[in-house]
């Protein structure tokens, strides 16, 4: 391409991003100053994204690297209806990349007249995009093939139809819909997006069964004491009104506003005519579970506070026991049998209890977290320990539960149980032993390790030593409680 000759570039009508990008590549690599180019657009907008420059330009273009902000700016500005948009954009790119004295960061100089103008154009397009996202209204049509189908008519100011498509695809993925505008149309069949020719208002359905309900809702949200027409028009310019079903209600609302306000103020305060629901008010305070069985029903019916099993493993044992044991969370076997402490750790726990001379049948056994937490990997469940937040979420239930059970002594097995009882995350070793849970009605308690910790120790020697210490702890628990 001759760098001194004047260039005439014709792009497609509408937002010809592809065509402009190609032209940009060829022109910048050929070092054509912006003054030497005359930009024009073909009369008929080509909405099928042809965007081919005449072959005469050759394939001199190579991709050019522009700052991301500039790329974003170009994408927006090409949607503008202003005929000069391509010339202005090229001028920006040229000034940033010209061989002598390039203004590399020109796009950051918001006060430069060119940058300012482009920013304003981008702003106008952005606003139009936003208005299309929010002011477009679908109307349902019954399609014999797909059933429910939604069609909308909208009149955007700029060539934004394609640019806006992703928003509607993301939001209404599971619906069949069509958006018709005078600048092109979009068709979505739940799988693929098609871009179609301009349409007319008469192509869209006249109304929708839900519009009356919507208008009623719109009317009811209006507060007549706060009429502020300017603010309404500023956010919802009149040009959009004719395609919005709710705006038909505006004149009526405005006309009646003043009299509605007067009426509200002038009306004498009336005496209550209904009876006071004294019984119901008294009953207000008597909420929440009244017994352990009722609490357990609530827990069983609730969704888990973590990702894992839906089955709640409840506490087990008599009310008013000498000792209540609190573990961490159920494991796989517990989840299967819906009983606490029946897995490998539970068996070890049983053995230790027996050696310490504690009858499990006479103790209450429960977990801080009522659901087993795991991540499913194919067929396998990978167990997860509960996070601090999850322990806190289950804490309310544990508090209520032990409130009903009323044990003489509460034993926290492991750090999670100690956290749930004490209200904050702790390390076991420094506080192992007798303890008072101040956050739990000053409940006398005892902190020791969780039996599953013993199972996880690698060496036989450690396991033996720790097991003995655990049994020792249980013996002291027995002495304290019985």
């Amino acid at each position, binding site marked *: 391409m001759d760098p001194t000759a004047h260039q005439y570039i014709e792009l497609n009508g509408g937002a010809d991003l592809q065509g402009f990008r190609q032209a940009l590549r060829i022109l910048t690599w050929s070092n054509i100053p912006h003054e030497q180019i005359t930009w024009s657009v073909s009369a008929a907008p080509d909405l099928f994204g042809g965007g081919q420059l005449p072959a005469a330009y050759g394939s001199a273009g190579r991709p050019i690297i522009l700052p991301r902000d500039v790329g974003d700016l170009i994408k927006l500005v090409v949607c503008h209806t202003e005929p000069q948009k391509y010339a202005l954009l090229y001028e920006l790119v040229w000034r940033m990349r010209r061989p002598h004295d390039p203004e590399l*960061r*020109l796009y*950051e*100089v918001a*006060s430069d*007249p060119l940058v*300012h103008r482009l920013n304003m154009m981008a702003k106008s397009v952005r606003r139009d995009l936003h208005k299309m*996202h*929010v002011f*477009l*209204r*679908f109307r*349902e049509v019954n399609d014999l093939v797909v059933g429910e189908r*939604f069609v909308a008519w909208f009149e955007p100011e700029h060539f934004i139809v394609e640019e806006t498509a992703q*928003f509607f695809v*993301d*939001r*209404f*993925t*599971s619906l069949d819909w069509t958006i018709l505008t005078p600048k092109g149309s979009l068709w979505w069949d739940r799988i693929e997006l098609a871009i179609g020719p301009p349409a007319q208002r008469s192509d869209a359905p006249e109304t929708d069964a*839900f519009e009356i*309900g*919507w208008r*009623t*809702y*719109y*009317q*009811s*949200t*209006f*507060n007549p*004491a706060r*009429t*502020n*027409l300017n*603010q*309404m028009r*500023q*956010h919802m310019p009149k040009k959009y009104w004719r395609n*919005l079903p709710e705006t038909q209600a505006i004149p009526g*609302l405005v006309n009646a506003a003043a009299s509605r306000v007067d*009426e*509200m103020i002038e*009306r004498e*305060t*009336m005496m*209550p005519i*209904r009876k*006071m629901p004294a019984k*119901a*008010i008294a*009953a*207000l305070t*008597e909420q929440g579970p009244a017994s352990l069985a009722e609490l357990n029903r609530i827990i069983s019916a609730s*969704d888990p*506070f*973590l990702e894992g099993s839906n089955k709640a493993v409840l506490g087990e044992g008599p009310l008013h026991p000498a000792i209540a044991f609190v573990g961490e969370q159920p494991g796989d076997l517990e989840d299967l049998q819906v009983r606490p402490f029946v897995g490998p750790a539970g068996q070890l726990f049983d053995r230790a209890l027996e050696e310490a001379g504690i009858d499990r049948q006479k103790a209450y056994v429960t977990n801080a977290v009522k659901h087993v937490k795991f991540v499913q990997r194919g067929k396998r469940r990978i167990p997860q320990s509960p*996070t601090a*937040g999850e322990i806190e979420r289950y804490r*309310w239930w544990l508090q209520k539960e032990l409130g009903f059970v009323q044990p003489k002594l509460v034993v926290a097995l492991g750090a999670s149980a100690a956290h749930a009882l004490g209200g904050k995350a702790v390390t076991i070793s420094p506080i192992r032993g007798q303890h008072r849970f101040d956050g739990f009605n000053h409940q006398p308690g005892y902190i020791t390790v969780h039996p599953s910790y013993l199972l996880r120790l690698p060496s036989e020697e450690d396991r033996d030593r720790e097991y003995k210490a655990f049994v020792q702890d249980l013996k002291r628990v027995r002495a304290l409680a019985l």
Partner: protein
Amino acid sequence: MRAYTGRSAYLRTPQSMMPPARQRRKNRQAGPKGLGSTDGNGICRAYTPDGRCVSLLKILLTNFCLYDCAYCINRRSSNVEHARFTVDDVVKLTIAFYKRNYIEGLFLSSGIIQTPDCTMEQLILVAKKLRRDEGFAGYIHLKTIPEASPWLIEQAGLWADRLSINLELPTQDSLKAYAPEKDSVSITNAMSQMGERIAESTEEISRHALKFAPAGQSTQVIVGADATNDAGMLAASAGLYASYGLSPVHYSAFSPIPDSSKALPIKSPPLQRANRLYQADWLFRYYGFGVEEIASGGEGGMLDLDIDPKLAWALKNRDRFPVDVNTADREALLRIPGLGVRAIDRIIIARRHTSLRLEDVGCVCAGLKRVRPFIITADWRPTAETDRADLRQQLAPQPKQLSLF
């Protein structure tokens, strides 16, 4: 339908209670069978003639209520006609409105029926059905009932994008006088429970933990129903921001309700008061102003109604001006009346490459009139302007001329 929704307008929960601009879980999107998305952009679907935005289907499950809050149309001693939605009604209506692009999501609240727990369970059920049965990925805001059992609040957070508890009145005494069944202790307890959980959930995002109210929690206070002044309001808000990680506080101007209680003032406060409080709140959260500084701009703990709080502060602190936009640090720029955060960001970037003139500043902000007396640029220095006694008169909006017939 008016029977239900008509009331909610008078509940004084402003329609501007919109989803926040930035959600922690940004750009959520439904699966191929589901419906909806949240994308963190502006979401107002329509505007009513009061200039407020309609963004969510904001309804009450029922307008029957056992509480007797003086400011509320639905209090038990009111003579309003009562009505009730079923859970399925709300789910169906939300989906139908959402599919037609009428709304951005659901904002559900309810009068207290039977017990707070019972009411809260119904609210949760709506959210759960929307998410689980309808695959709804749009925005859900649940009004939390502070007197409900804590585990219900935990559950609400698993289904809703945002939870809120209305503080309604900024002091404990006012609450006692106007809302006898409400108790500020249970309100703050529930707020702190939600605040803790939201914070934990942000930290635990990668640890297979379920998300709790990804859009956080907000609250609302009524302006002008009790005697609290603006400084008191702002101090209460500052306390909420600091203690419960809450954002934002909505200021809702008291306005007359039909069938009102005798305990209330008959007239509404000037509309401007709530606007000034919003502006002040903004200064507090994004501009580095302290509550005392903002309050010092007005008189006797009330903000100036004629001019915005930033200008009011600047006029009383003229020794801090003019500020050179080409050299001053960000904190100093944030104090200039008429310059917003975005304009300041642009100035800071642009001045790396060029020395800004007055005209250039005009390119990045909304208008020079207010800014001019407070800045120095490459070609401008206000000589006596900053200290003029009538500066306030010049900058305050002119009173509207009354027309004579």
